[in-house]
């Protein structure tokens, strides 16, 4: 039974990282397209991008915290 719990810990972080990596990739691609087309708007785009990335990053980190909590319960 413990083995499955370890699997859960690993899967929690891995799946969350998978999803947010894809999301961040798409967001960064959009931002880069925007900067390439309109270099004068790069300042605005950069701050918005950092904010958006932080929101996505947070989801992975929530699952990381849950994984650590789960690990201490095993």
């Amino acid at each position, binding site marked *: 039974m413990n083995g499955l719990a370890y699997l859960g810990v690993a899967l929690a972080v891995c799946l969350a990282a998978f999803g947010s990596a894809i999301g961040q990739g798409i967001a960064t691609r959009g931002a880069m397209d925007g900067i390439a087309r309109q270099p004068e708007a790069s300042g605005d785009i950069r701050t918005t991008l*950092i*904010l958006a990335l*932080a929101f996505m990053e947070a989801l992975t*980190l*929530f699952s990381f915290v849950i994984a*650590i909590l789960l690990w201490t319960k095993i």
Partner: protein
Amino acid sequence: MGLENLQHLLEHVRPTVLFHIGEIPITTTVFNTWIVMLILFPTAYLVSRRLQARPRGMQNLLELLADFFNGLLEDNMGKEGRKFLPLVGTLFLFILFLNLSWFIPDMKPPTTDLSTTAAFAVVTIVLVQLIGIKKRGLKGYIKHFFQPSPFLFPLNLIEELVKPVSLALRLFANMFGEKTVVAALFLLFPLLLPLPVMILGVIMGLIQALVFSLLTVVYISTFIQGH
């Protein structure tokens, strides 16, 4: 086996009680925050004591920072945004120094403790709500919960309640994660292997401080202008 490894790992991150003042236990978190304050306050005082029209050295750096945040505040809420510069700048500098205190040997950065980040988040959010009440009046503030339509009241309420939680957890989990990964790599193979992640930690510390102050600006500006 697993639990022992984890305990060993978390020893690098968990705050420990150093000494007691009366009945109050003083943990490494509090003590390290004092150390960072001792570094930060004299530095800020020395840099800003003799301001010159033609800046030199550290003054350049601070003016760059102030200019950046001024621009950000004015973009988000116009001329009146400038008065929030002290709040946002202090949050940025303090969190940056707390994050980077990791690189003082044998130091647990205070931001790896949820208590520190929760304190930051609660202070920020209470202030944001107070600014909202002051700007819109109590009636307007309550009304904004029912804004697009009354059915959305639960959603609006949850949004306001989740703000501090996500602020605190984001900063905490980022720094805690960095530190844990480095500790794990250190257990595997101590020579040079943790170094790339530690370099990432420098960038992370900067970005997280920036994100915290950016989010503060965004939360304030939702109350200054419409939703």
